[in-house]
Structure formats: structure tokens, C-alpha cells
């Protein structure tokens, strides 16, 4: 808790930004939705990575640039970053009690997830369209 907290603080002020009961089920729904989508996508992802294991650059580029693997890869990445951003947000609000640190961590979480999503999607698109 920040230092300026006192007995004068209202109960509402003390729990502000900590999440509400009404919004709580949204996280559950998003995690459930994305994990459902990720089940088949993970099978595809693991199959692609297994095929990439012994590939040289030319083979890797050909595989990742092919339509079906590229689409599986992009969908896997997008579902993953959504899933992991919501998941880590709950870890952050559970463990980081200092308000400013928590807000920084929440911002970093979102920036990391969006960054990973953008870079991975751009790379796969590039392999698909610019060989």
C-alpha cells in the first residue's frame, strides 16, 4: 500500500483499480475461449516446429511461407498472446501490491504481448509474400 493511505480513505478508494466483481468473468471467458482455440492450434504448432527441427534456412522459409502452416502459425501466435496477456495480468494483480509497480507491470505485459504478436505475424507474412 502507498504511504499516503490512512484511516480516512474510503473502502471504495482502497479497492479502486483492483478489479471488480462484475468484470471478473470477462477474464474467465477470454481464457476459456482462447484455450479452447489453442487446443487444435497447439497440435498444429507442435507439428510445424517438429518439421522445422532439422530444416535449414531454405526449407524453413518454404515451410513457414506455405499457406496452411503460415495461417496456423499466425492464429497460434494471436490466440497465444491474447491468452498469455490475460493470464499474466491475473498473476500481476495477485502478486504486485505496490500500485505504481503494478501499473507498470500491467503496461509492460500488454506491450510485450502486442510486440510479440506484431513481430511474429510480420515475420510470417514476410515469409509468405516476400521470399
Amino acid at each position, binding site marked *: 500500500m502507498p504511504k499516503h493511505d490512512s484511516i480516512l480513505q474510503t473502502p471504495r478508494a482502497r479497492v479502486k483499480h483492483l478489479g471488480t466483481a462484475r468484470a471478473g468473468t470477462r477474464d474467465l471467458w477470454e481464457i*476459456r475461449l482462447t484455450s479452447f482455440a489453442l487446443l487444435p492450434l497447439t497440435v498444429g504448432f507442435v507439428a510445424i516446429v517438429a518439421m522445422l527441427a532439422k530444416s535449414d534456412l531454405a526449407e524453413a522459409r518454404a515451410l513457414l511461407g506455405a499457406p496452411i502452416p503460415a495461417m496456423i502459425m499466425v492464429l497460434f501466435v494471436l490466440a497465444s498472446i491474447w491468452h498469455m496477456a490475460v493470464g499474466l495480468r491475473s498473476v500481476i494483480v495477485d502478486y504486485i501490491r505496490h500500485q505504481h509497480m503494478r501499473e507498470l507491470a500491467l503496461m509492460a505485459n500488454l506491450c510485450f504481448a502486442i510486440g*510479440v504478436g506484431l513481430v511474429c505475424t510480420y515475420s510470417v507474412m514476410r515469409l509468405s509474400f516476400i521470399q
Partner: protein
Amino acid sequence: MAEANSSPLPIEQRRPLSPHVQIYRWSATMAMSILHRVTGVALYAGTLLLTVYLVTAAGGGVAFAQVSRFFGSALGQVILFGYTFALMLHVCGGLRHAVWEAARGFDPVSRNLLAWSSLIGAVVLTALVWAGAAML
């Protein structure tokens, strides 16, 4: 938890806090629950492995060769094996939660069975993935 004394209220007005993990005897469900969160965070960091691979594959040349050599090295293989196991454990944990969300498997026998089978399932799936990758 850690900052239990930071409450502005006098001690007699504070609400009781729940005891945390260190007070309980370990059970299979508790261990798998904690491992689910730990593997989730590990997989979060692990997305960087995929990012680096895709970027260098798209960029090509020397960087890709270096990344491939790292993934092929002993350390790289250990990291990839750990990533595979974390992924499989998290997937099995997700399936376990799917059973619970259907409001089934809460009795002591079923929940222990679910916890153990998700661990064994993850071990088996990891072995299958690596055996499959080796045969390709």
C-alpha cells in the same frame, strides 16, 4: 501475505487473512495448480524463442545460422525440451480445468486422478513429440 502489517487499521479492526501455501501439507491438486501457473509464466517468456526464430527465418543469413546452432546445442536442446514439457503440462492442465468447469471430477478420488493424469499425460506427450520430431 507479505505486507500483512501494512494495513492502516488498528489490529482489532483488521479482517483475518487466509493462510498461504507454506501452511498446507502438499497435495497433488495443489502442486498441479501451482505448476499450471508456473508453466504459464514460463511459456510467456518462451514466446521469445519463437519470436527470435521467426524473425531470423524472415531476415535470413547469418543470424538464422546462429539461432539454429544455439537450438541444436546442448543448452538449446534442454531449453526446448523444457519448453515442450511446460507446454504439454499447461495443455493438460487446461483439459483438467475443462473437466472441472463442466462441474465434474471434484470428489477426492477424481480430483487426484485428474492431477496425476495431467502430469503423466504431459510426460507421455513430451516423449511422443520428441520421438516424432526425431523420426521426421
